[in-house]
C-alpha cells in the first residue's frame, strides 16, 4: 500500500487539479456547447433545438464586426506588446544606472485593473478633455486626435491602452530571459568575432523560447479578457465599432437575455482561440520533450 502510494504520488497530487480542470473548464465548455444548441433566452434551457443560434450568429453584422475586431486587436496587441517588451528589455539590459526605478515605471500599469486603465485612457483620448484639447490649448489649433470617436479608428485606441497596460510585464519577462542566457556562450561567440546583432538573433533570442511561450500565453489571455477594457474605454462604441466577441457574448447573455446566442458566440470565439493556441502549445511542448 505504501509502495503503491509512493509510486503513484505524482498522479495523486495532480488529480485534484485534473478533476478541477475537467469539470470547471472542459465541463463548462461542454455546458456552453449544449446551451448553444438550445433556444435559451433569459435563463438556460436544456432542450436541444438545432443549430439555429449559429445561423443567427452568421446573420449578425455586429458579430461580424466583433470577430474582425478580435483579429485586428488580437494580432496588433500581441505583436506590438511583444516587440515593445523585447525592445524595452534590450534597452534596459544595457547597464542603466536607474534601472530599478525605470523598470518599476514600465511595470506598474499591469497593477491597475482594466477598468481603471480604460477610464483613464478614455479621458486622455477624449477630444474635448484630453490630448487634443491640451495641445490645442498650447496653440496648435489644427491638431486633431479623434481616434476615440472615429468608428474606423476606435479599435486602435483599445490596442493603445492594452499595450500600455501589458507591455511592461512582457518587458519584465524578456529582461529576465535576457539575463539568464549563459554568459559562457555569449563570450564564446564574441571571441569568435560574431557581430552583436547576430549574437542576439542567433543565440539569445532563440534560447528565450520558453519566455516567448509565457509571454504569448499571458498576452493572449489578456487579449481575450480585454472585455473590461473595452467597456470602460469605449463602451463598445462608436455604435458597435469596438465590439469584441467577449463583449458581444456579455451583452447577449446579460443585457439582452439571449443566452443561447451568447453561448454560440462563446463557442465560436473559443474555436478561434483553439485553432491558434493549440498548434503553438503543441510545437512548444513537443520540443521540450526532446
Amino acid at each position: 500500500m505504501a509502495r503503491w502510494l509512493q509510486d503513484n504520488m505524482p498522479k495523486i497530487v495532480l488529480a485534484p487539479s485534473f478533476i478541477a480542470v475537467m469539470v470547471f473548464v472542459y465541463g463548462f465548455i461542454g455546458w456552453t456547447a449544449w446551451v448553444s444548441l438550445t433556444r435559451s433566452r433569459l435563463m438556460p434551457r436544456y432542450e436541444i433545438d438545432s443549430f439555429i443560434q449559429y445561423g443567427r450568429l452568421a446573420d449578425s453584422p455586429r458579430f461580424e464586426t466583433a470577430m474582425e475586431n478580435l483579429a485586428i486587436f488580437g494580432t496588433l496587441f500581441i505583436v506590438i506588446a511583444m516587440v515593445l517588451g523585447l525592445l524595452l528589455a534590450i534597452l534596459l539590459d544595457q547597464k542603466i544606472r536607474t534601472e530599478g526605478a525605470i523598470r518599476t515605471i514600465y511595470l506598474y500599469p499591469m497593477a491597475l485593473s482594466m477598468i481603471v486603465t480604460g477610464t483613464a485612457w478614455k479621458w486622455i483620448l477624449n477630444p474635448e478633455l484630453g490630448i487634443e484639447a491640451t495641445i490645442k490649448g498650447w496653440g496648435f489649433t489644427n491638431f486633431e486626435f479623434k481616434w476615440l470617436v472615429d468608428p474606423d479608428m476606435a479599435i486602435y485606441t483599445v490596442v493603445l491602452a492594452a499595450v500600455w497596460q501589458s507591455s511592461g510585464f512582457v518587458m519584465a519577462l524578456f529582461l529576465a530571459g535576457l539575463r539568464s542566457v549563459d554568459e559562457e556562450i555569449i563570450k564564446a561567440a564574441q571571441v569568435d568575432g560574431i557581430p552583436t546583432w547576430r549574437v542576439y538573433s542567433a543565440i539569445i533570442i532563440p534560447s528565450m523560447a520558453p519566455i516567448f511561450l509565457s509571454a504569448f500565453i499571458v498576452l493572449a489571455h489578456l487579449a481575450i479578457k480585454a472585455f473590461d477594457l473595452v467597456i470602460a474605454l469605449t463602451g463598445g462604441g462608436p455604435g458597435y465599432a469596438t465590439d469584441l466577441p467577449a463583449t458581444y457574448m456579455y451583452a447577449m447573455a446579460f443585457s439582452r437575455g439571449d443566452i443561447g446566442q451568447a453561448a454560440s458566440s462563446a463557442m465560436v470565439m473559443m474555436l478561434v482561440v483553439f485553432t491558434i493556441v493549440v498548434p503553438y502549445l503543441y510545437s512548444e511542448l513537443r520540443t521540450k520533450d526532446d
Partner: protein
Amino acid sequence: MKSYVLSTASAIAVCAAGVASADGHAEAEVLHYWTSGGEAKSVAVLQEEFAANGGTWTDMPVAGGGGDAAGTALRARVLSGNAPTAAQIKGPAIQEWYAEGVLADISSVAEANDWANLLPASIAAHMQCEGTWCAAPVNVHRVDWIWANTEILAANGIEMPTTWDEFNAAAETLQAAGIIPLAHGGQAWQDATVFETVVLGLGGAEFYQAALVNLDSEALTSDTMIAAFDQMRTIRGYVDPNFSGRDWNLATAMVMNGEAAFQIMGDWAKGEFLAAGKVPGVDFSCASTPGDGYLYNVDSFAMFSVDGDGKAAGQELLAELIMGPNFQEVFNMNKGSIPARTDVDLSGFDECAQLSAAEMASTNDGGTLMPSYAHGMALFGAQSGAITDVVTAHFNSEMSSADAVQMLADAVANSM
C-alpha cells in the same frame, strides 16, 4: 474597519434571527442600480420607511449600464438558488423572469391597496404576470422630452418646435449663429432615445405601436420608417463632432452653459438643471418632443420567490411602501420623475413634472401613452437590442435610410 465588522456581525445576527425565529420579522435584500448621490438618497427614503415599519433592509447595489452589471449579478444569483428578495427590474423583463418561474406573487398587497385603480392601465399591465401582481412601480419617467436653453431660443427668435420640420428649421438658424443645435451623447441608448422620439413624432402613436412594440414587418419597412431614418441623418448633422461616447449629463451641461441649444433626453435631465440651480421656464424650457404622444419608462421592483417567512413579509411590506403615497411623493420629487400612483398631490412638484403628469393622464385617455422601446419597456432585450444596434450603426456611419430599414427588418427577424 471596526464599525464595519460590527455591522456585518449585526447583519449576520439579524439574518440568523430572521431565519431561525420565522416570526415574520420583515427583511429584504434589495438589488438595485441607484448608486449616485441623488438616487441613493431617494432609495434611502424607502429604506427608512422600511425600517420604521420594523423591517431590515440589506442593500445590494450594482451600478452601471442602466442595469447590465446588476442583470449579471441577478442571473448568477438566481441560477445559484440564492435570489435576492427584490430586484430593480422593469418592462417586459418582468414577464420574462416570471416565465422562468422565479417571481413571487404579491397580489394580496396589490388588491388590499387597490393598485388596479390607482395606476394607469398600461402601467398596471406591466406589473402583472398572467393575472397575478408580481412587481411594484416606483415612478413614471417621461422619455420624449426636449430641453432647451431659454436664453438662446429667445436671442434667436425660436419657439419650442412642435413638428420635426420646425425643429430642423430652428437647427439651421442656430447653426448659422454658431451654436450647436443639439447636444447629444453618442452612446447606443441615447441614439435609441432620439430615434424613438422621431418615430413617434413622424409616424404617430399607432405607427410607433405597430413598428416598435408589435414589430410588424410592414411598419418596419414602410416609407414612414425610411423617413424616420432620414430625419436621424438630418439630426446627425446637427450634433457636434465630439459627440461619440459622451455621457448624457455632459450633454445636458452643454445646454446649460450655452454651447448647445437643445437636448432630447428623458426627465432625469431635469435633475441636472435643478442641481445646478437653474429654474424651469426661466433658464431652461421643457416640452414634449415634436409630435403627439407620451413615451414612458417605469422603474419597478420585482419580487423573487425566496424561502423564509421573514423574506415574504419583507416583500409584502416593501410592495406596500413602494406604492404608498408618501414614498411616491418624496422619491419622485427628488428624482425628476412623477409618481406612478395617480392620486398623489402634485402641488409641490415643478412645472415640468406637472406638465408630465397632465400629459400622462391625457394621453392615457387618448390612447397615445406608449412604452419606451429604448428604455426596455416595449420589447424583450433581444429585440430591442437588435433594433438599437441598427440605429446606432446608422447614426455612426454613412448608411442610407433604405439600407438601414432593410438591416432593421433583418435584425428583428434574426432576433426572434
